[in-house]
Protein backbone atom coordinates (compact mmCIF):
# COMPACT_ATOMS: atom_id res chain seq x y z
CA UNK A 1 0.00 0.00 0.00
CA UNK A 2 1.51 3.31 -1.02
CA UNK A 3 1.53 6.39 1.15
CA UNK A 4 -1.26 8.08 -0.78
CA UNK A 5 -3.67 5.18 -0.19
CA UNK A 6 -2.60 5.06 3.40
CA UNK A 7 -3.29 8.76 3.86
CA UNK A 8 -6.74 8.43 2.25
CA UNK A 9 -7.64 5.60 4.60
CA UNK A 10 -6.35 7.52 7.57
CA UNK A 11 -8.50 10.48 6.57
CA UNK A 12 -11.49 8.11 6.74
CA UNK A 13 -10.50 7.36 10.36
CA UNK A 14 -9.52 3.82 9.52
CA UNK A 15 -7.71 2.69 12.66
CA UNK A 16 -5.74 -0.03 10.99
CA UNK A 17 -4.41 2.49 8.50
CA UNK A 18 -3.52 4.86 11.31
CA UNK A 19 -1.68 2.07 13.04
CA UNK A 20 0.16 1.14 9.86
CA UNK A 21 1.21 4.73 9.21
CA UNK A 22 2.48 4.99 12.75
CA UNK A 23 4.37 1.72 12.53
CA UNK A 24 5.88 2.73 9.22
CA UNK A 25 7.35 6.02 10.42
CA UNK A 26 7.52 6.03 14.22
CA UNK A 27 10.94 4.40 14.60
CA UNK A 28 12.65 6.77 12.23
CA UNK A 29 10.88 9.79 13.65
CA UNK A 30 11.86 8.80 17.18
CA UNK A 31 15.47 8.79 15.98
CA UNK A 32 15.01 12.39 14.83
CA UNK A 33 13.34 13.46 18.08
CA UNK A 34 16.09 11.73 20.03
CA UNK A 35 18.78 13.85 18.39
CA UNK A 36 17.14 17.06 19.61
CA UNK A 37 16.68 16.05 23.24
CA UNK A 38 18.63 14.88 26.24
CA UNK A 39 16.39 11.99 27.22
CA UNK A 40 14.34 9.29 25.57
CA UNK A 41 11.28 10.33 27.60
CA UNK A 42 11.43 13.82 26.10
CA UNK A 43 11.94 12.32 22.66
CA UNK A 44 8.81 10.18 23.08
CA UNK A 45 6.83 13.21 24.24
CA UNK A 46 7.81 15.01 21.06
CA UNK A 47 7.02 11.94 18.97
CA UNK A 48 3.59 11.68 20.54
CA UNK A 49 2.77 15.33 20.05
CA UNK A 50 4.16 15.22 16.54
CA UNK A 51 2.04 12.26 15.48
CA UNK A 52 -1.08 13.85 16.95
CA UNK A 53 -0.35 16.85 14.72
CA UNK A 54 0.28 14.56 11.78
CA UNK A 55 -3.09 12.83 12.10
CA UNK A 56 -4.97 16.03 12.82
CA UNK A 57 -3.48 17.84 9.85
CA UNK A 58 -3.28 14.98 7.43
CA UNK A 59 -5.70 16.64 5.04
CA UNK A 60 -3.04 19.32 4.52
CA UNK A 61 -0.67 16.76 3.07
CA UNK A 62 -0.87 17.47 -0.65
CA UNK A 63 0.48 14.19 -1.86
CA UNK A 64 2.95 15.91 -4.15
CA UNK A 65 5.93 15.35 -1.87
CA UNK A 66 7.01 12.44 0.24
CA UNK A 67 4.88 11.66 3.26
CA UNK A 68 8.01 10.85 5.25
CA UNK A 69 9.52 14.26 4.57
CA UNK A 70 6.26 15.98 5.55
CA UNK A 71 6.09 14.07 8.81
CA UNK A 72 9.76 14.80 9.42
CA UNK A 73 9.19 18.55 9.10
CA UNK A 74 6.36 18.32 11.62
CA UNK A 75 8.59 16.39 14.03
CA UNK A 76 11.42 18.91 13.73
CA UNK A 77 9.04 21.84 14.29
CA UNK A 78 7.49 20.04 17.24
CA UNK A 79 10.95 19.39 18.67
CA UNK A 80 11.93 23.06 18.34
CA UNK A 81 8.69 24.16 20.03
CA UNK A 82 9.24 21.60 22.76
CA UNK A 83 12.75 22.89 23.43
CA UNK A 84 11.50 26.46 23.57
CA UNK A 85 8.75 25.58 26.04
CA UNK A 86 10.57 23.13 28.24
CA UNK A 87 12.19 24.86 31.19
CA UNK A 88 15.28 22.75 31.32
CA UNK A 89 16.21 23.59 27.74
CA UNK A 90 15.48 27.30 27.82
CA UNK A 91 18.75 28.52 29.31
CA UNK A 92 20.84 26.76 26.72
CA UNK A 93 18.58 27.97 23.95
CA UNK A 94 19.31 31.57 24.81
CA UNK A 95 22.50 31.26 22.78
CA UNK A 96 24.72 32.91 25.31
CA UNK A 97 28.41 32.29 24.73
CA UNK A 98 29.39 29.82 27.39
CA UNK A 99 33.09 30.03 26.73
CA UNK A 100 33.22 26.92 24.64
CA UNK A 101 36.00 27.98 22.34
CA UNK A 102 36.59 26.22 19.07
CA UNK A 103 39.50 23.89 19.05
CA UNK A 104 41.80 23.33 16.17
CA UNK A 105 40.58 20.25 14.41
CA UNK A 106 40.94 18.44 11.20
CA UNK A 107 38.38 19.89 8.79
CA UNK A 108 36.88 16.64 7.55
CA UNK A 109 37.73 13.82 9.90
CA UNK A 110 37.00 10.25 9.02
CA UNK A 111 33.89 9.22 10.95
CA UNK A 112 34.35 5.67 12.09
CA UNK A 113 31.76 5.89 14.83
CA UNK A 114 28.53 4.01 14.41
CA UNK A 115 25.22 5.82 14.14
CA UNK A 116 24.37 5.48 17.80
CA UNK A 117 27.78 6.68 19.01
CA UNK A 118 27.65 9.72 16.76
CA UNK A 119 24.10 10.52 17.91
CA UNK A 120 25.23 10.34 21.53
CA UNK A 121 28.06 12.80 20.82
CA UNK A 122 25.63 15.21 19.16
CA UNK A 123 23.34 14.92 22.19
CA UNK A 124 26.23 15.83 24.49
CA UNK A 125 26.52 19.24 22.87
CA UNK A 126 24.92 22.13 24.77
CA UNK A 127 21.28 22.41 23.70
CA UNK A 128 21.78 25.52 21.57
CA UNK A 129 24.69 23.97 19.69
CA UNK A 130 22.87 20.67 19.45
CA UNK A 131 19.80 22.29 17.93
CA UNK A 132 21.66 24.37 15.37
CA UNK A 133 23.93 21.48 14.45
CA UNK A 134 20.94 19.21 13.88
CA UNK A 135 19.06 21.79 11.86
CA UNK A 136 22.01 22.64 9.63
CA UNK A 137 24.12 19.51 9.33
CA UNK A 138 21.38 16.88 9.41
CA UNK A 139 18.19 18.57 8.24
CA UNK A 140 20.00 20.81 5.76
CA UNK A 141 18.44 24.12 6.79
CA UNK A 142 20.37 27.26 5.83
CA UNK A 143 21.51 29.66 8.51
CA UNK A 144 18.92 32.17 7.31
CA UNK A 145 16.19 29.60 7.83
CA UNK A 146 17.60 28.58 11.20
CA UNK A 147 17.67 32.22 12.26
CA UNK A 148 13.99 32.51 11.35
CA UNK A 149 13.05 29.27 13.15
CA UNK A 150 14.93 30.05 16.35
CA UNK A 151 14.43 33.81 16.34
CA UNK A 152 18.14 34.63 16.14
CA UNK A 153 20.15 36.36 13.47
CA UNK A 154 21.99 34.53 10.76
CA UNK A 155 25.40 35.43 12.14
CA UNK A 156 24.62 33.92 15.54
CA UNK A 157 23.49 30.72 13.90
CA UNK A 158 26.61 30.60 11.81
CA UNK A 159 28.99 31.18 14.73
CA UNK A 160 27.17 28.78 17.02
CA UNK A 161 27.25 26.15 14.32
CA UNK A 162 30.94 26.65 13.79
CA UNK A 163 31.62 26.11 17.49
CA UNK A 164 29.33 23.10 17.65
CA UNK A 165 31.03 21.58 14.64
CA UNK A 166 34.52 22.11 16.05
CA UNK A 167 33.54 20.71 19.37
CA UNK A 168 31.95 17.65 17.82
CA UNK A 169 34.92 17.01 15.57
CA UNK A 170 37.29 17.19 18.52
CA UNK A 171 35.14 14.68 20.39
CA UNK A 172 35.01 12.38 17.40
CA UNK A 173 38.79 12.49 17.11
CA UNK A 174 39.23 11.81 20.79
CA UNK A 175 36.79 8.94 20.60
CA UNK A 176 38.64 7.43 17.70
CA UNK A 177 41.92 7.87 19.50
CA UNK A 178 40.48 6.05 22.48
CA UNK A 179 39.12 3.30 20.27
CA UNK A 180 42.42 2.89 18.46
CA UNK A 181 44.77 3.11 21.42
CA UNK A 182 42.57 2.22 24.34
CA UNK A 183 43.68 5.47 26.00
CA UNK A 184 40.86 7.44 27.54
CA UNK A 185 40.95 11.13 26.59
CA UNK A 186 38.90 13.55 28.63
CA UNK A 187 36.35 15.56 26.68
Amino acid sequence: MDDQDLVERCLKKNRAAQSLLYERYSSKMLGICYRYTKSMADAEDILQEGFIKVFRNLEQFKGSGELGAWIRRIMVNTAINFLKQKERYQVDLSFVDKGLHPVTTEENPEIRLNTRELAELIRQLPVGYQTIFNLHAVEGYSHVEIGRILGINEGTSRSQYSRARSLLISWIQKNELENNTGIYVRK
Partner: protein
Amino acid sequence: MYENEFEKKVQQNMEGLEFIPSDAVWTKVVQEINPEKDRRRPFFWIFLLAGLIVAGGGLYYSNIVRNQQGQPEGSPKSKPEREVINSPDKDFKTGRSQADPISVPAKQNDKDPIQKHLLTQIMAAQGSSAKQVSKRKNLVITIPEDGHIEENGRMIVIGELDHSLRNWHLINSLDINAPNSSSAGRIKSRIIPYWPSKLNRKGFQIGFNAGGGLSAIRQNILSSGNAAAARINGVVPAYQPSEIDPGPYWKLGLSVQYALSKNLSVRLGLGYRQMINYIHVGAYTDSVTAIFYGPRNMPSSVSLGSFTSISGFYKYGTQNRYKENYNWLDLPLSLDWLMTRYGKLPLHLVPSISASYLLNSSALQFDPNSGIYYRDNSLLERINLSGSLALMTNILSRDIIWQFGPKFEYGLNDLLSKNAMSQQRMEFIGAELLIIPENWLKGKRK
Protein backbone atom coordinates in the same frame (compact mmCIF):
# COMPACT_ATOMS: atom_id res chain seq x y z
CA MET B 1 24.48 22.29 -0.14
CA TYR B 2 26.91 21.33 2.55
CA GLU B 3 30.20 23.10 2.96
CA ASN B 4 32.17 19.89 2.92
CA GLU B 5 32.17 16.17 3.40
CA PHE B 6 31.77 16.21 7.16
CA GLU B 7 28.13 17.33 7.10
CA LYS B 8 27.36 14.84 4.37
CA LYS B 9 28.81 12.00 6.40
CA VAL B 10 26.93 13.08 9.49
CA GLN B 11 23.66 13.28 7.61
CA GLN B 12 24.14 9.86 6.01
CA ASN B 13 24.99 8.43 9.38
CA MET B 14 22.00 9.98 11.14
CA GLU B 15 19.55 8.70 8.55
CA GLY B 16 19.97 5.27 10.06
CA LEU B 17 19.14 6.34 13.61
CA GLU B 18 15.94 4.57 14.66
CA PHE B 19 14.35 3.53 17.94
CA ILE B 20 11.16 1.63 18.67
CA PRO B 21 8.86 3.83 20.73
CA SER B 22 7.08 2.50 23.78
CA ASP B 23 3.45 1.42 23.48
CA ALA B 24 2.33 4.33 25.63
CA VAL B 25 3.08 6.78 22.82
CA TRP B 26 0.67 5.15 20.40
CA THR B 27 -1.93 4.75 23.12
CA LYS B 28 -2.02 8.47 23.72
CA VAL B 29 -1.94 9.27 20.03
CA VAL B 30 -4.94 6.99 19.43
CA GLN B 31 -6.84 8.57 22.28
CA GLU B 32 -6.23 12.04 20.97
CA ILE B 33 -7.10 11.36 17.36
CA ASN B 34 -10.06 9.07 17.95
CA PRO B 35 -12.06 10.57 20.78
CA GLU B 36 -14.47 8.14 22.32
CA LYS B 37 -18.21 8.58 22.12
CA ASP B 38 -20.12 9.35 25.26
CA ARG B 39 -22.24 6.64 26.68
CA ARG B 40 -24.32 6.25 29.80
CA ARG B 41 -23.94 3.23 31.99
CA PRO B 42 -26.59 1.92 34.30
CA PHE B 43 -25.71 2.24 37.95
CA PHE B 44 -26.68 -1.36 38.51
CA TRP B 45 -23.29 -2.42 37.26
CA ILE B 46 -21.57 0.05 39.55
CA PHE B 47 -23.13 -1.50 42.59
CA LEU B 48 -22.64 -5.02 41.30
CA LEU B 49 -18.93 -4.36 41.00
CA ALA B 50 -18.86 -2.75 44.42
CA GLY B 51 -20.52 -5.87 45.81
CA LEU B 52 -17.96 -8.13 44.22
CA ILE B 53 -15.15 -6.07 45.64
CA VAL B 54 -16.70 -6.14 49.07
CA ALA B 55 -17.11 -9.90 48.88
CA GLY B 56 -13.49 -10.27 47.81
CA GLY B 57 -12.31 -8.08 50.66
CA GLY B 58 -14.42 -10.03 53.12
CA LEU B 59 -13.02 -13.31 51.95
CA TYR B 60 -9.51 -11.99 52.33
CA TYR B 61 -10.14 -10.60 55.76
CA SER B 62 -11.83 -13.75 56.96
CA ASN B 63 -8.50 -15.52 56.54
CA ILE B 64 -6.56 -13.14 58.71
CA VAL B 65 -8.85 -12.10 61.48
CA ARG B 66 -7.47 -13.55 64.64
CA ASN B 67 -10.88 -14.16 66.17
CA GLN B 68 -11.85 -16.61 63.54
CA GLN B 69 -10.56 -19.97 64.59
CA GLY B 70 -10.73 -23.43 63.15
CA GLN B 71 -10.32 -22.09 59.67
CA PRO B 72 -7.28 -23.48 57.90
CA GLU B 73 -5.06 -20.82 56.41
CA GLY B 74 -5.58 -20.51 52.70
CA SER B 75 -7.60 -22.95 50.74
CA PRO B 76 -6.54 -25.91 48.69
CA LYS B 77 -5.17 -24.72 45.41
CA SER B 78 -7.35 -25.60 42.53
CA LYS B 79 -5.88 -27.05 39.40
CA PRO B 80 -4.73 -24.44 36.95
CA GLU B 81 -7.43 -23.48 34.56
CA ARG B 82 -6.80 -24.74 31.11
CA GLU B 83 -7.33 -22.75 28.00
CA VAL B 84 -7.34 -23.76 24.41
CA ILE B 85 -5.24 -21.91 21.90
CA ASN B 86 -5.06 -22.51 18.20
CA SER B 87 -2.01 -23.76 16.46
CA PRO B 88 0.12 -20.93 15.09
CA ASP B 89 0.33 -22.78 11.77
CA LYS B 90 -3.25 -22.01 10.94
CA ASP B 91 -3.94 -20.34 7.60
CA PHE B 92 -4.93 -16.93 8.86
CA LYS B 93 -5.63 -15.50 5.45
CA THR B 94 -8.59 -17.75 4.80
CA GLY B 95 -9.31 -18.81 8.32
CA ARG B 96 -10.78 -22.04 6.95
CA SER B 97 -8.44 -24.66 8.25
CA GLN B 98 -9.25 -26.08 11.64
CA ALA B 99 -5.93 -26.86 13.18
CA ASP B 100 -5.95 -29.12 16.17
CA PRO B 101 -6.18 -27.07 19.28
CA ILE B 102 -3.35 -27.33 21.74
CA SER B 103 -4.34 -27.57 25.34
CA VAL B 104 -2.01 -25.56 27.52
CA PRO B 105 -2.26 -25.01 31.26
CA ALA B 106 -3.08 -21.35 31.67
CA LYS B 107 -0.42 -20.69 34.27
CA GLN B 108 2.35 -22.22 32.23
CA ASN B 109 1.24 -20.95 28.90
CA ASP B 110 2.03 -17.30 28.93
CA LYS B 111 2.62 -14.53 31.37
CA ASP B 112 -0.44 -12.87 29.90
CA PRO B 113 -3.08 -15.53 29.22
CA ILE B 114 -5.74 -12.91 28.52
CA GLN B 115 -3.65 -11.54 25.71
CA LYS B 116 -3.12 -15.00 24.31
CA HIS B 117 -6.77 -15.74 24.53
CA LEU B 118 -7.79 -12.52 22.82
CA LEU B 119 -5.39 -13.18 20.02
CA THR B 120 -6.95 -16.55 19.51
CA GLN B 121 -10.28 -14.85 19.12
CA ILE B 122 -8.89 -12.30 16.71
CA MET B 123 -7.40 -15.06 14.65
CA ALA B 124 -10.65 -16.95 14.57
CA ALA B 125 -12.59 -13.85 13.63
CA GLN B 126 -10.45 -13.20 10.58
CA GLY B 127 -11.95 -15.82 8.37
CA SER B 128 -15.39 -16.26 9.78
CA SER B 129 -17.19 -13.19 10.95
CA ALA B 130 -16.59 -9.73 12.19
CA LYS B 131 -17.65 -10.64 15.65
CA GLN B 132 -16.39 -13.37 17.90
CA VAL B 133 -17.70 -14.19 21.30
CA SER B 134 -15.43 -15.86 23.78
CA LYS B 135 -17.15 -18.31 26.04
CA ARG B 136 -14.40 -18.38 28.62
CA LYS B 137 -13.88 -14.67 29.14
CA ASN B 138 -17.29 -13.56 27.92
CA LEU B 139 -15.64 -10.98 25.74
CA VAL B 140 -16.83 -9.59 22.50
CA ILE B 141 -14.20 -8.58 20.02
CA THR B 142 -15.42 -6.56 17.12
CA ILE B 143 -13.28 -6.22 14.06
CA PRO B 144 -14.64 -3.49 11.83
CA GLU B 145 -14.93 -4.24 8.13
CA ASP B 146 -12.07 -1.89 7.44
CA GLY B 147 -10.24 -2.96 10.54
CA HIS B 148 -7.45 -4.79 8.82
CA ILE B 149 -4.91 -4.01 6.17
CA GLU B 150 -2.61 -6.39 4.38
CA GLU B 151 0.80 -5.29 3.34
CA ASN B 152 3.83 -7.27 2.32
CA GLY B 153 2.42 -10.41 3.83
CA ARG B 154 1.68 -8.72 7.09
CA MET B 155 -1.77 -8.03 8.38
CA ILE B 156 -2.58 -5.24 10.76
CA VAL B 157 -5.70 -6.01 12.73
CA ILE B 158 -7.46 -3.64 15.02
CA GLY B 159 -9.80 -5.28 17.45
CA GLU B 160 -12.07 -3.39 19.77
CA LEU B 161 -12.94 -5.12 22.97
CA ASP B 162 -16.32 -4.98 24.58
CA HIS B 163 -17.20 -2.40 27.16
CA SER B 164 -16.01 -4.44 30.12
CA LEU B 165 -12.43 -4.10 28.96
CA ARG B 166 -12.70 -0.93 26.97
CA ASN B 167 -9.65 0.49 28.57
CA TRP B 168 -7.56 -1.96 26.60
CA HIS B 169 -6.69 -1.06 23.08
CA LEU B 170 -5.83 -4.04 20.98
CA ILE B 171 -3.38 -3.84 18.14
CA ASN B 172 -2.27 -6.91 16.31
CA SER B 173 -0.26 -7.52 13.27
CA LEU B 174 0.42 -10.97 11.96
CA ASP B 175 2.45 -12.42 9.14
CA ILE B 176 0.27 -14.28 6.71
CA ASN B 177 2.65 -14.94 3.85
CA ALA B 178 6.04 -14.60 5.39
CA PRO B 179 8.79 -16.05 3.16
CA ASN B 180 10.05 -18.13 6.00
CA SER B 181 7.37 -20.73 6.55
CA SER B 182 8.28 -21.08 10.19
CA SER B 183 7.27 -17.48 10.79
CA ALA B 184 3.98 -17.69 8.89
CA GLY B 185 1.16 -16.82 11.16
CA ARG B 186 3.53 -15.33 13.69
CA ILE B 187 1.71 -12.69 15.63
CA LYS B 188 3.12 -9.42 16.70
CA SER B 189 0.62 -8.01 19.06
CA ARG B 190 0.20 -5.34 21.60
CA ILE B 191 -2.66 -4.96 23.97
CA ILE B 192 -2.09 -1.63 25.52
CA PRO B 193 -3.96 0.32 28.12
CA TYR B 194 -6.12 3.28 27.29
CA TRP B 195 -5.85 5.01 30.57
CA PRO B 196 -2.91 7.42 30.77
CA SER B 197 -4.28 10.67 29.34
CA LYS B 198 -7.61 10.22 31.08
CA LEU B 199 -5.82 10.35 34.38
CA ASN B 200 -3.81 13.39 33.43
CA ARG B 201 -6.53 15.91 33.90
CA LYS B 202 -6.48 18.97 36.04
CA GLY B 203 -9.12 20.83 37.98
CA PHE B 204 -12.07 19.55 39.96
CA GLN B 205 -13.78 16.24 39.51
CA ILE B 206 -16.79 14.89 41.34
CA GLY B 207 -17.05 11.23 42.13
CA PHE B 208 -19.06 8.65 44.01
CA ASN B 209 -17.37 6.31 46.37
CA ALA B 210 -18.46 3.06 47.91
CA GLY B 211 -16.68 0.61 50.09
CA GLY B 212 -17.12 -2.37 52.25
CA GLY B 213 -15.45 -5.23 53.98
CA LEU B 214 -15.01 -6.33 57.54
CA SER B 215 -14.76 -4.21 60.64
CA ALA B 216 -13.35 -5.20 64.00
CA ILE B 217 -13.09 -3.62 67.42
CA ARG B 218 -10.02 -4.19 69.54
CA GLN B 219 -10.76 -3.76 73.20
CA ASN B 220 -8.67 -3.38 76.29
CA ILE B 221 -10.26 -3.68 79.75
CA LEU B 222 -9.09 -1.07 82.24
CA SER B 223 -9.32 -1.05 85.99
CA SER B 224 -11.74 1.66 86.91
CA GLY B 225 -13.56 2.98 89.90
CA ASN B 226 -15.40 0.06 91.35
CA ALA B 227 -13.21 -2.60 89.71
CA ALA B 228 -10.10 -1.16 91.29
CA ALA B 229 -11.84 -0.77 94.59
CA ALA B 230 -12.85 -4.40 94.49
CA ARG B 231 -9.25 -5.40 93.82
CA ILE B 232 -8.04 -3.39 96.82
CA ASN B 233 -10.60 -5.12 98.98
CA GLY B 234 -9.31 -8.48 97.83
CA VAL B 235 -12.18 -9.14 95.50
CA VAL B 236 -10.59 -9.40 92.09
CA PRO B 237 -13.12 -8.90 89.33
CA ALA B 238 -13.72 -12.28 87.88
CA TYR B 239 -15.38 -11.11 84.69
CA GLN B 240 -13.80 -10.64 81.34
CA PRO B 241 -15.89 -9.57 78.35
CA SER B 242 -16.33 -11.92 75.46
CA GLU B 243 -14.42 -11.24 72.29
CA ILE B 244 -16.06 -8.88 69.85
CA ASP B 245 -16.43 -10.71 66.57
CA PRO B 246 -15.77 -8.80 63.39
CA GLY B 247 -18.69 -7.97 61.15
CA PRO B 248 -19.39 -6.26 57.88
CA TYR B 249 -19.25 -2.58 57.14
CA TRP B 250 -20.32 -0.65 54.10
CA LYS B 251 -20.18 2.96 53.09
CA LEU B 252 -21.42 5.29 50.41
CA GLY B 253 -20.46 8.82 49.69
CA LEU B 254 -19.63 11.68 47.41
CA SER B 255 -16.23 13.20 46.88
CA VAL B 256 -14.68 16.18 45.19
CA GLN B 257 -11.22 15.72 43.80
CA TYR B 258 -8.73 18.40 42.81
CA ALA B 259 -5.60 17.57 40.84
CA LEU B 260 -2.57 19.30 42.29
CA SER B 261 -0.30 17.90 39.62
CA LYS B 262 -0.23 15.08 37.12
CA ASN B 263 0.40 12.54 39.82
CA LEU B 264 -1.10 14.09 42.91
CA SER B 265 -4.71 14.86 43.78
CA VAL B 266 -6.44 15.84 46.96
CA ARG B 267 -9.94 14.54 47.68
CA LEU B 268 -12.56 15.61 50.16
CA GLY B 269 -15.57 13.42 50.77
CA LEU B 270 -18.81 13.17 52.66
CA GLY B 271 -20.34 9.80 53.30
CA TYR B 272 -22.38 7.46 55.40
CA ARG B 273 -20.98 4.31 56.97
CA GLN B 274 -22.64 1.45 58.79
CA MET B 275 -20.59 -0.95 60.84
CA ILE B 276 -21.75 -4.14 62.52
CA ASN B 277 -19.98 -6.23 65.15
CA TYR B 278 -21.10 -9.16 67.23
CA ILE B 279 -20.65 -9.88 70.92
CA HIS B 280 -21.64 -12.98 72.93
CA VAL B 281 -23.77 -12.22 75.97
CA GLY B 282 -25.94 -13.99 78.45
CA ALA B 283 -29.69 -13.78 78.90
CA TYR B 284 -31.49 -10.46 78.95
CA THR B 285 -33.14 -9.26 82.12
CA ASP B 286 -35.32 -6.26 82.93
CA SER B 287 -33.84 -5.88 86.40
CA VAL B 288 -32.35 -2.64 87.68
CA THR B 289 -28.74 -2.46 88.80
CA ALA B 290 -26.20 0.25 89.57
CA ILE B 291 -22.94 0.82 87.69
CA PHE B 292 -20.16 2.98 89.06
CA TYR B 293 -18.85 5.59 86.66
CA GLY B 294 -15.58 7.16 87.62
CA PRO B 295 -12.20 8.12 86.27
CA ARG B 296 -10.19 5.22 84.94
CA ASN B 297 -7.38 3.66 86.99
CA MET B 298 -8.54 5.30 90.20
CA PRO B 299 -9.87 3.41 93.21
CA SER B 300 -13.39 4.40 94.04
CA SER B 301 -12.24 5.33 97.55
CA VAL B 302 -10.20 8.22 96.18
CA SER B 303 -12.03 9.04 92.99
CA LEU B 304 -14.99 11.18 92.49
CA GLY B 305 -17.57 9.20 90.70
CA SER B 306 -21.19 8.30 90.78
CA PHE B 307 -23.42 5.30 90.51
CA THR B 308 -25.80 5.17 87.59
CA SER B 309 -28.89 3.09 87.57
CA ILE B 310 -29.23 0.70 84.64
CA SER B 311 -32.58 -0.74 83.75
CA GLY B 312 -32.36 -3.80 81.58
CA PHE B 313 -29.11 -5.56 80.76
CA TYR B 314 -27.58 -8.77 79.47
CA LYS B 315 -26.10 -11.13 82.03
CA TYR B 316 -22.66 -12.60 81.84
CA GLY B 317 -22.57 -15.53 79.44
CA THR B 318 -22.12 -16.50 75.83
CA GLN B 319 -25.37 -18.14 74.81
CA ASN B 320 -26.69 -15.14 72.83
CA ARG B 321 -25.08 -13.35 69.93
CA TYR B 322 -25.81 -9.65 70.08
CA LYS B 323 -25.45 -7.44 67.00
CA GLU B 324 -23.84 -4.08 67.65
CA ASN B 325 -24.68 -1.47 65.09
CA TYR B 326 -22.82 1.81 64.51
CA ASN B 327 -23.87 4.49 62.03
CA TRP B 328 -21.39 7.18 61.10
CA LEU B 329 -21.22 10.32 59.06
CA ASP B 330 -17.73 10.43 57.55
CA LEU B 331 -15.69 13.37 56.35
CA PRO B 332 -12.56 11.88 54.75
CA LEU B 333 -9.64 13.89 53.39
CA SER B 334 -7.38 11.93 51.05
CA LEU B 335 -4.25 12.37 49.05
CA ASP B 336 -4.15 10.38 45.83
CA TRP B 337 -0.69 9.65 44.53
CA LEU B 338 -0.53 8.05 41.11
CA MET B 339 2.62 6.01 41.48
CA THR B 340 2.81 4.35 38.07
CA ARG B 341 1.68 6.31 35.08
CA TYR B 342 2.44 3.74 32.42
CA GLY B 343 1.90 0.04 32.27
CA LYS B 344 -1.09 -2.20 32.26
CA LEU B 345 -2.29 -1.23 35.70
CA PRO B 346 -1.89 2.23 37.13
CA LEU B 347 -1.35 2.19 40.88
CA HIS B 348 -2.51 4.83 43.31
CA LEU B 349 -1.44 5.09 46.92
CA VAL B 350 -4.17 6.85 48.87
CA PRO B 351 -3.48 7.84 52.47
CA SER B 352 -6.49 9.42 54.20
CA ILE B 353 -7.58 10.87 57.45
CA SER B 354 -11.24 10.85 58.32
CA ALA B 355 -13.35 12.57 60.94
CA SER B 356 -16.50 10.58 61.71
CA TYR B 357 -19.56 11.65 63.62
CA LEU B 358 -21.49 8.88 65.37
CA LEU B 359 -25.15 9.21 64.42
CA ASN B 360 -26.39 6.33 66.58
CA SER B 361 -25.38 2.98 67.92
CA SER B 362 -26.75 -0.11 69.59
CA ALA B 363 -23.41 -1.05 71.15
CA LEU B 364 -23.24 -2.69 74.58
CA GLN B 365 -20.90 -1.67 77.37
CA PHE B 366 -19.35 -4.14 79.82
CA ASP B 367 -18.97 -3.79 83.57
CA PRO B 368 -15.99 -5.96 84.62
CA ASN B 369 -17.09 -6.05 88.23
CA SER B 370 -20.62 -7.32 87.77
CA GLY B 371 -20.07 -8.94 84.38
CA ILE B 372 -23.14 -7.40 82.82
CA TYR B 373 -23.57 -5.90 79.35
CA TYR B 374 -25.72 -2.82 79.07
CA ARG B 375 -26.51 -0.01 76.66
CA ASP B 376 -25.31 3.50 77.34
CA ASN B 377 -24.52 5.64 74.34
CA SER B 378 -23.25 8.44 76.53
CA LEU B 379 -20.08 6.36 76.93
CA LEU B 380 -19.43 6.51 73.18
CA GLU B 381 -17.34 9.30 71.73
CA ARG B 382 -19.34 11.20 69.16
CA ILE B 383 -16.34 12.28 67.08
CA ASN B 384 -13.77 9.74 65.96
CA LEU B 385 -10.65 10.13 63.90
CA SER B 386 -9.24 7.39 61.75
CA GLY B 387 -6.32 7.01 59.37
CA SER B 388 -6.33 4.77 56.35
CA LEU B 389 -4.18 3.59 53.50
CA ALA B 390 -5.50 2.26 50.21
CA LEU B 391 -3.74 0.86 47.18
CA MET B 392 -5.94 1.40 44.19
CA THR B 393 -5.91 0.81 40.48
CA ASN B 394 -7.97 2.05 37.57
CA ILE B 395 -10.25 0.66 34.98
CA LEU B 396 -11.33 3.22 32.44
CA SER B 397 -14.39 2.92 30.34
CA ARG B 398 -15.51 5.41 27.76
CA ASP B 399 -17.32 7.61 30.20
CA ILE B 400 -16.38 6.54 33.71
CA ILE B 401 -13.13 6.24 35.60
CA TRP B 402 -13.29 3.33 38.04
CA GLN B 403 -10.75 3.32 40.81
CA PHE B 404 -10.70 0.51 43.28
CA GLY B 405 -8.47 -1.45 45.58
CA PRO B 406 -7.92 -2.77 49.07
CA LYS B 407 -8.02 -0.41 52.01
CA PHE B 408 -7.00 -0.61 55.65
CA GLU B 409 -8.32 1.85 58.19
CA TYR B 410 -7.45 2.22 61.86
CA GLY B 411 -9.12 4.28 64.56
CA LEU B 412 -6.83 6.95 65.93
CA ASN B 413 -8.75 7.61 69.11
CA ASP B 414 -10.67 5.64 71.69
CA LEU B 415 -14.19 4.77 70.64
CA LEU B 416 -15.31 5.13 74.25
CA SER B 417 -15.29 8.11 76.58
CA LYS B 418 -13.06 8.29 79.65
CA ASN B 419 -15.87 7.12 81.91
CA ALA B 420 -16.02 3.74 80.21
CA MET B 421 -14.22 0.80 81.71
CA SER B 422 -12.53 -0.31 78.54
CA GLN B 423 -10.77 1.14 75.55
CA GLN B 424 -11.89 0.27 72.06
CA ARG B 425 -10.41 1.01 68.69
CA MET B 426 -11.96 0.39 65.32
CA GLU B 427 -10.25 -1.41 62.46
CA PHE B 428 -11.53 -1.80 58.95
CA ILE B 429 -10.20 -3.88 56.14
CA GLY B 430 -11.97 -4.04 52.85
CA ALA B 431 -12.17 -2.54 49.44
CA GLU B 432 -12.87 0.93 48.22
CA LEU B 433 -14.40 1.94 44.94
CA LEU B 434 -14.35 5.41 43.47
CA ILE B 435 -16.38 6.23 40.39
CA ILE B 436 -15.76 9.43 38.49
CA PRO B 437 -18.15 10.11 35.63
CA GLU B 438 -15.93 11.69 33.02
CA ASN B 439 -18.41 14.03 31.45
CA TRP B 440 -19.04 15.92 34.63
CA LEU B 441 -17.16 19.17 34.74
CA LYS B 442 -16.00 18.42 31.23
CA GLY B 443 -14.74 21.92 30.71
CA LYS B 444 -12.06 21.37 33.31
CA ARG B 445 -10.28 18.75 31.30
CA LYS B 446 -6.66 19.21 30.65
